[in-house]
């Protein structure tokens, strides 16, 4: 009876030996794998092209972003002077300088949107997804309500109530982002809370907070990161849209989206006023999404070291 399975009663030493030979692979090899992904490298390069000049704006700017020059309006782009590298606009302001400074507002605002909206939405989604039940139900119905609203209308309503300013525009767009984060994180959390390792962790005495922070959140991170890379790009456009309607950045503060819409009027006589900020915007968004895709692949637990 007993000899079916308990064949050799191994001494402790033999047991230990056999245990050691089980395949323990080197964990370091995959750490730099990300860099070997072509899309990731391209994305990083594109981001660097945009972000580094924006960060170095004061160094690379021979004039201020609001410095007007009545004698040099609508100058075509030329490489002779840094000021007119990308031409000048209707007030003779340097497009190059305004693009650099504008990037600070655009990128800064979109990062703020993602941080505020992403954090709030993720927190709601985690609580709703992990707890489920009545609490989860109530949270998700509020989220559904917000989702049912057209986003731009919601943002308009919020800025109309709070008053037009960049900060309020950021808050408005963040509120639009909250339900989208909450929904995807809730789905992930609901899936993760039933995984064997979460059950095992519960059986070891981990409380809800520990499980949410250590197991559910990291498990939901790939989804959050993808959503974030999408929203970093989308938020720039939304901030621009609100600016265009006079509810966001106030002139003369430069901001990419607003520069594009300002430049529209003179597109036929001076294409560069709208095209260069648009180009920076596009490169930024493409770079972000390439990096986001690569990060998502890297963070997918089933793909790790596979």
């Amino acid at each position, binding site marked *: *009876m*007993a*000899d*079916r*399975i*308990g*064949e*050799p*009663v*191994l001494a*402790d030493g033999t*047991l*230990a*030996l*056999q*245990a*050691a030979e*089980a*395949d*323990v*692979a080197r*964990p370091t090899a995959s750490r730099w794998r990300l860099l070997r992904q072509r899309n990731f490298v391209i994305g990083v390069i594109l981001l660097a092209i945009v972000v580094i000049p924006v960060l170095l704006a004061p160094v690379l700017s021979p004039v201020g972003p609001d410095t007007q020059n009545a004698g040099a309006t609508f100058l075509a782009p030329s490489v002779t002077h840094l000021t007119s590298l990308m031409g000048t606009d209707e007030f003779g302001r340097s497009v190059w300088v305004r693009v650099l400074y504008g990037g600070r507002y655009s990128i800064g605002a979109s990062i703020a949107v993602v941080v505020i909206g992403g954090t709030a939405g993720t927190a709601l989604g985690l609580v709703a997804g992990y707890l489920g*039940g009545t609490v989860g139900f109530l949270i998700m119905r509020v989220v559904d309500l917000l989702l049912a609203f057209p986003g731009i209308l919601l943002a308009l309503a919020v800025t109309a109530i709070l008053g037009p300013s960049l900060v309020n525009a950021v808050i408005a767009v963040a509120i639009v982002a909250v339900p989208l984060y909450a929904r995807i994180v809730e789905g992930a959390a609901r899936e993760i809370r039933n*995984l*064997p*390792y979460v*059950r*095992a*962790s*519960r*059986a*070891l*005495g*981990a*409380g809800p907070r*520990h499980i949410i922070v*250590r*197991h559910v959140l*990291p*498990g939901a991170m790939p989804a959050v990161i993808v959503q974030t890379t999408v929203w970093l790009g989308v938020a720039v456009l939304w901030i621009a849209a609100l600016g265009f309607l006079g509810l966001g950045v106030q002139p003369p503060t430069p901001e990419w989206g607003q520069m594009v819409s300002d430049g529209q009027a003179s597109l036929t006589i001076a294409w560069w006023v709208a095209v260069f900020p648009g180009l920076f915007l596009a490169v930024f968004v493409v770079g972000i999404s390439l990096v986001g895709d690569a990060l998502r692949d890297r963070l997918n*637990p*089933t793909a*790790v*070291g596979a």
Partner: protein
Amino acid sequence: MTGPATEGAKNAQSAEAVPPVLDVRGLHTHFRRGRNVVKVVRGVSFRVGRSGSVGLVGESGSGKSITALSVMGLIQKPGFIADGQILLDGRDLVGMPAAELTKLRGRDVAMVFQEPIAALNPLYHIGTQVAEAIRVHQDLTKNQALERARQLLAMVGIADAGRVLRSYPHQLSGGMCQRVTIATALANDPGLLIMDEPTTALDTTIQAQILDIIADLKTRLETAIVFVSHDISVVTQVCDELVVMYGGRVMESGRTEQVIGSPKHPYTQGLITAAMSVSGGTGRLKSIPGEVPDPQHMPSGCPFRPRCPHAMPQCAADPPLSDLPDGRQVACWLHGSTTGSTTVEEVTPL
């Protein structure tokens, strides 16, 4: 003065004085399904003494795993404990507030699950996970916890503990992961360790290693063990006592050698015959005809009645779990109080 009789009396006395680690009394665990209530566990009682080891055996669907999860307080909606008591060190876990149960889990009672790799988070190193399990209950620094983790891994026969601690779960074999989860479960010296099919997902040689480790731990530690398995031959290697379950009920319980040597309940006899035919030589494998009843359509009376070779009209009434003179318990009308005269021929191997 030191005759065997007085010795036995002394033991009985001390057993009376020291309460069992676990005392499950009349446990009923049900699940809501739509408007119906599915009764998965229906009045299960058993005890686990200090440093004792009890095996819960039965086919899939017998309610053994749900019994184990009930003891852990891990029954989640739509499941609930409908009735009964679960006394862990004399404290009733049924109706205990969730926060208190959380504190208790891992410290007083821990559990090892069937799927060893899935029971570990793929995102963290083994060391992080073992250390965290320690730090949930003990006030140690990260480094102290890691040192303790190293000792724990050594205790379950992992020679290269340092390297295993630095590995991710997917880099280890199933057997290695199961050693890790056993070590983790023992991290806070729980009085009771529940293992739910800990070797079922492993191949036979690894299974033997894990069973050896469990047997070894049993002799070295004071932790009591509840070992849940469908495989009676595995359970007998580890456990001093057996609880045979079927249809959410206890069919037979007693000391392992009693139950294996002379099974009283026809279901136990069937299980043993089937296990024997697997291990013993040639010929057709024996099985118990019929299927485990669906808990939604449980037959009245003895749940084994439809498959039982000795079924009789009386079996339509619930057989009580009655004590036999040799100290074990059987729930069958062939034995016990009223119809004790009828005996079943002992099962013969092969």
